[in-house]
């Protein structure tokens, strides 16, 4: 076996976004030796980009809010495909997770009586998003980062070593989880650690640990137009698949309705939903507020019928219904898509979004409420949003699908000792995520993953298993392959073609023929990616890093395409041109992806179907029977009088 650097921990958290940091804080607070490994610098994780806010039913602005209302909104937003237990835990625990941030130093915007202010967002019945201007994610990540530092300062005082129980390994990328077959069962595996490389030196390193938490975020870099950052190459999803843990709901990808469309180099960058939450409206080229034409039947009762009513709602929510600009994201994204297709788009292929004249405090208020949007448009597009409309269009934003987990413990069913939380995990958001529900998800399930990983490692005691030397050698060989290939393919070119394929063929509106074509192309791209070669040496070599990321992106994109081809209905972040209706039968179907032979030269994904767990009766009772009828089969409906 080749000599590699080794680090031994009780719990290793892969990912330093909201979910990973919260998990690490939990495991360390429980006294376990914890490592955080992340492929960027500490404090730069994708969570830093979140803008609008974090959803929690604290009821600071409207006291009628409660976990039950939040739960209902979440299930409706996800079109009832959510794992209801996750949605329940999330709604119940989110307020405590937000308050806890404040005790760690976060400074949210305030209400007049000095509490945390909350803003309106699409799909949320009451003002519910705690926020800091439009840079909430930065506040979240910095607070957690500073809490990690606080814990390290404690250890410094206690042990004379700040890293005694909690250490951050930054710019270190994990490429394989290490497992051994689990003695208890004949199919499952058990975690022994993780294998990765340092970006700076290119050297390999092994983390020995009985418990691993995956918190690596999403997959957006598989698509051409995306709001996602460099990190979103689907690493965690692929690591789980390769270790034997299945992914679910991968057909559900959220296209955020409002990304920038011009100039081309910024296409996809997010325009936060708070623009609409604070009064912004969508217009087509004829100047019409077209969203009134796109309110679907399931939501007819809940949205304003006229512009006047919608406008009144901002100041009087008791007596008016909300404007349809605040429908869940999937609805708004499809509407924009249709307007552009019908020839009523803006000059650069989007629609108009404007806040001009929409805030009582005028220019001043726009700049105060939306500082980073003002800055972003001014700097990147020469557009002054206090005086002109923005041009916006859909952009790939979030993946609802992800690693299958136990709702209470965040444990993966396939691999003992493996946990997942945050965007990388699936189930919580069903077929469509509401804005603000991700940041709260990160904290609620990050904490739970940290807790249960810690409990598991603690219970194991000394009964730990060693990583298998052959596995480490194989991982090293795999990582070095790009240096050895002849007839090299350019990894950048393969990546661009993958992004184009997904954008064109498995995008916002899907058709059978196109998805089948995508799968054929993905096979070709896989073959080419296997031959991706790199120039230069191992020190901080981005061409090499990309060549390794390609494996992950191709695997998760195959999961998306295969699941999307299979699901013959339209729901949330999965719209089929050939099956436009939502089907109660399909609601009960969970599509899971796995890899039959993770050591095979040529990796491929297989699909299996399973049945969704029926919702607990007391939760079903939170909905009117008439509403449930729109989603559930007759057999699933509660009795007439129940």
């Amino acid at each position, binding site marked *: 076996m080749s000599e590699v650097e080794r680090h031994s921990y009780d719990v290793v958290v892969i990912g330093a976004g909201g979910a990973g940091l919260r998990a690490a804080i939990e495991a360390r607070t429980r006294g376990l030796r914890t490592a955080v490994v992340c492929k960027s610098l500490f404090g730069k994780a994708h969570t830093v*980009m979140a803008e609008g806010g974090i959803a929690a039913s604290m009821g600071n602005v409207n006291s009628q809010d409660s976990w039950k209302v939040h739960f209902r909104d979440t299930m409706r937003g996800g079109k009832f495909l959510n794992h209801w237990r996750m949605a329940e835990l999330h709604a119940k625990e989110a307020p405590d997770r937000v308050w806890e941030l404040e*005790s760690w130093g976060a400074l949210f*915007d305030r209400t007049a009586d000095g509490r945390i202010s909350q803003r309106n967002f699409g799909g949320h019945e009451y003002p519910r998003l705690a926020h800091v201007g439009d840079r909430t994610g930065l506040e979240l990540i910095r607070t957690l980062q500073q809490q990690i530092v606080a814990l390290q300062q404690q250890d410094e005082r206690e042990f004379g070593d700040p890293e005694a129980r909690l250490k951050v390994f930054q710019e270190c990328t994990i490429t394989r989880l290490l497992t051994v077959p689990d003695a208890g069962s004949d199919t499952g595996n058990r975690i022994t650690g993780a294998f990765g490389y340092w970006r700076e030196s290119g050297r390999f390193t092994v983390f020995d640990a009985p418990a691993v938490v995956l918190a690596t975020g999403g997959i957006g870099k598989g698509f051409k137009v995306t709001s996602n950052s460099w990190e979103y190459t689907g690493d965690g999803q692929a690591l789980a698949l390769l270790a034997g843990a299945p992914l679910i709901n991968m057909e559900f990808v959220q296209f955020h309705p409002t990304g920038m469309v011009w100039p081309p180099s910024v296409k996809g960058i997010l325009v936060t939903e708070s623009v609409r939450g604070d009064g912004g409206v969508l217009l087509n080229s004829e100047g019409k507020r077209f969203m009134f034409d796109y309110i679907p039947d399931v939501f007819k009762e809940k949205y304003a019928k006229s512009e006047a009513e919608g406008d009144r709602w901002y100041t009087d929510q008791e007596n008016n219904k909300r404007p349809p600009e605040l429908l869940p994201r999937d609805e708004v994204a499809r509407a924009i898509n249709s307007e552009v297709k019908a020839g009523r788009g803006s000059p650069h292929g989007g629609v108009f979004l404007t806040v001009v004249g929409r805030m009582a405090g005028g220019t001043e208020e726009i700049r105060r409420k939306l500082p980073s949007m003002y800055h972003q448009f001014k700097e990147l597009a020469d557009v002054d949003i206090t005086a002109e409309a923005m041009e916006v269009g859909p952009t790939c934003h979030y993946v609802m699908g992800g690693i299958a987990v136990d709702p209470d413990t965040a444990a993966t069913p396939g691999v003992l000792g493996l946990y997942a939380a945050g965007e990388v995990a699936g189930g919580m958001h069903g077929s469509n995520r509401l804005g603000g529900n991700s940041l709260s998800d990160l904290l609620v399930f990050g904490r739970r993953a940290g807790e249960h990983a810690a409990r598991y490692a603690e219970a194991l005691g000394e009964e730990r298993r060693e990583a298998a030397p052959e596995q480490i050698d194989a991982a090293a060989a795999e990582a070095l392959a790009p240096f050895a290939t002849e007839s090299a393919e350019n990894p950048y070119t393969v990546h661009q073609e993958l992004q184009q394929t997904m954008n064109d063929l498995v995008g916002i509106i899907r058709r059978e023929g196109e998805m089948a074509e995508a799968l054929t192309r993905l096979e070709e791209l896989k073959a080419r990616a296997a031959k991706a070669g790199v120039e230069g040496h191992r020190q*901080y070599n981005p061409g090499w890093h990309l060549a390794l990321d390609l494996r992950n992106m191709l695997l998760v994109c195959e999961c998306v395409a295969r699941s999307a081809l299979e699901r013959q209905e339209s729901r949330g972040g999965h719209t089929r041109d050939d099956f436009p209706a939502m089907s109660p039968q399909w609601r009960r179907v969970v599509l899971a992806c796995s890899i039959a032979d993770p050591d095979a030269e040529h990796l491929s994904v297989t699909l299996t179907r399973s049945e969704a767990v029926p919702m607990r009766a007391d939760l079903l009772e939170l909905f009117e029977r008439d509403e449930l009828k729109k989603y559930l089969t007759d057999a699933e409906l509660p009795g007439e009088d129940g």
Partner: protein
Amino acid sequence: MSYKADFRIWRGDVDGGELRDFKVEVNEGEVVLDIIHRLQATQAPDLAVRWNCKAGKCGSCSAEINGRPRLLCMTRMSTFAPEEVVTVTPMRTFPVIRDLVTDVSFNYAKARQVPSFTPPADLKPGEYRMQQVDVERSQEFRKCIECFLCQNTCHVIRDFEDNKAAFSGPRFLMRIAELDMHPLDVADRQKAAQEEHGLGLCNITKCCTDVCPENIHITDNALIPMKERVADRKYDPLVWLGNKIRRRGSGD
């Protein structure tokens, strides 16, 4: 709208390096980071650069463009004339790892030396009450994206390696000010700022403020008030000078 631009990019590592010339296509609306990416995809696949968000939010892509510290992703190509040579070099204050990537661990070490937020012992989560006006001052400093451009620019450490031990730099002096102005922080910050973090070394030149991509008024709103608070305990001639400069500036 497209043209070919002349780029000079520093390539090398700890052992040394040099500026290399590239000719590369530029299209409408692009930023310098787009050009670096194009170079990676077409001419220099192993050109090292840090970046994450490409939207000015993460503070990863700091470098020096024609000698000026900037974010690569927020510097538009339209700020240069087409015939102008664009020179990109790594931040100078920190040791080079490779090409445009530097070792910024100095900043993480300094961050760990600032005692963390200390709320009143008996205050429970959920019971915090603060007014918007009272949190706004610290909120300004919490806009910091930790790009470390101010750290890179401050002459106290840019040209004097020896000062690094005694000086935390504008970013972390500002962090102390942020905690000092937090309505509920109970720790004593002022003495430590002066004695342990080198506040006295700052001579309020405002170079840090000039390069901050978040337009935070580091000097006026964090450093000078901090010096004033310290001066309440001890006479500091620079505060006196700072007040003069400030008063003149705002009267213009």
